[in-house]
């Protein structure tokens, strides 16, 4: 009797006997072989017996079904064939060997690390399932000491500069002001500040020489400015 061995990254998951007229493969639980992976379509493929022939058919899956590295829509399976579905492989064992002429075709490279995409409706489900979508933090600086154009700066951009250079978010004035004194990055996890141009940067009175995460209320001293960081809710 023909059977397939389901493998994930070289590790055997389970062996399935092909004793039915038709064996379906897919992500949904009503399949005979359920592969719970987002790269696999709900009803991905099926293996049917047609007389003594074992036929694999792709059921219009998003990421495709591959036999020995080639994308197929419908093909006969032989002993030793390797089916690739998503990131799982199925090794076929049957009585029928591939005849010599057709053997060894297609080593051409569909590998496991090829890019795939999740079907849009599945994607909504994943996002809905784990939705504690964090609001992006929004914060900025209040100027406590030093001469700047504004008293308060809200930093919306991903990277903002403090310096005299044009384009700085917090623009310094004066002949001796540095072109670039520090950079502030905004990330989903929060804000952080990095010194630039060899200027001394203090956060809460301590000199820092590498990136430093900013918390609500932190005091930043740089290039003659004294700034207080704030985070909005």
């Amino acid at each position, binding site marked *: 009797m023909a059977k397939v061995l389901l493998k994930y*990254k070289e590790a055997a998951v389970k062996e399935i006997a092909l004793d039915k007229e038709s064996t379906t493969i897919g992500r949904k639980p009503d399949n005979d072989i359920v592969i719970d992976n*987002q*790269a696999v379509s709900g009803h991905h493929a099926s293996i049917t017996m047609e007389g003594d022939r074992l036929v694999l058919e792709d059921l*219009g*899956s*998003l*990421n*495709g079904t591959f036999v020995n590295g080639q*994308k197929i*829509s419908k093909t006969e399976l032989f002993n030793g064939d390797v089916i690739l579905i998503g*990131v799982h492989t199925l090794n076929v064992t049957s009585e029928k060997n591939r005849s010599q002429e057709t053997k060894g075709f297609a080593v*051409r*490279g*569909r*590998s*496991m*690390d*090829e*890019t*795939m*995409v*999740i*079907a*849009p409706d599945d*994607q909504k489900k*994943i*996002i809905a399932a*784990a939705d*504690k*979508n*964090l609001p992006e933090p929004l914060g900025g600086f209040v100027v406590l000491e030093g001469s700047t154009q504004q008293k308060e700066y809200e930093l919306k*951009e*991903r*990277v*903002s*500069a403090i310096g005299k*250079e*044009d*384009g*700085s*978010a917090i623009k310094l004035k004066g002949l001796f002001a540095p072109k*670039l004194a520090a*950079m502030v*990055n905004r990330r*989903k996890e929060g804000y952080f500040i*990095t010194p*630039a*141009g060899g200027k001394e940067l203090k956060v809460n009175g301590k000199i820092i020489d590498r990136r430093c995460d900013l918390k609500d209320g932190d005091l930043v001293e740089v290039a003659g400015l004294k700034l207080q960081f704030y985070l909005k809710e």
Partner: protein
Amino acid sequence: MNLTACGKTDQGLVRANNEDNFYLDEKMGLLVVADGMGGHASGEKASGLAVSLIRDYFQGPQKIIGSPDPSFSEATNRLGCAIRLANQAVYEVAQSSPQFKGMGTTIVAVLLTGRKLSIAHIGDSRAYLIRAGSIDQLTDDHSMVQEQVKRNLITQEEADRSEMKNILTKALGIQPEIEADLDELTVMDGDILLLCTDGFSNMVTDDDALDMISSAQNGSAACESMIDAANRNGGKDNITVVIGYVWKEKWYSALMKFMEFFRR
């Protein structure tokens, strides 16, 4: 602000074909990188189509179709619109023939307008900013692992090592409508932009990329050494890097050109 750009793409060492595409327009201030996917040659088709549609949009009247997002500038909305239209067209081609079914592409594009840089992306191709000796990623990958990081289910280190890195949550051309993630940034004289596909970012660390860009004589040498590095580390996927140098015309540059003329 002016933009000088340079780009290079390489098949890598493992893949049988190159599904990456890129486009540069220094005058327009536009850089685009795309990484196609799909069986047979359809990945190439998807990325090539997306890139040329965005190019055509900016060479045309650049009309904004649909309602613009008021929180972004007009230029950023134009970039978002170009991607939206490219998505529609790629999707239609994908539906038109079984050979192209399921094809799609990532996209990352930046547009420099004066001091403002508009950034748009879908998928896991990235944009980086290199400023004052540090490198910062400007885009968040639309990949399953990155979604998990965002929700604190796994750490960034686990994500970098994950085998599932190749699974995207968003791609251009696989659904009838899609919105790119948009962002804006104020640029400064001396900023360097790097756009790349995952064939580069998965093979080379950000810090190594920074070293290579800052030590290179010029853009093409930097691209060259970055592609070599990605291939040295395995070259598992197609590699594309695009570097854009942002610079300001100096008041004395006309004078310099004048002097240069006489020196010859």
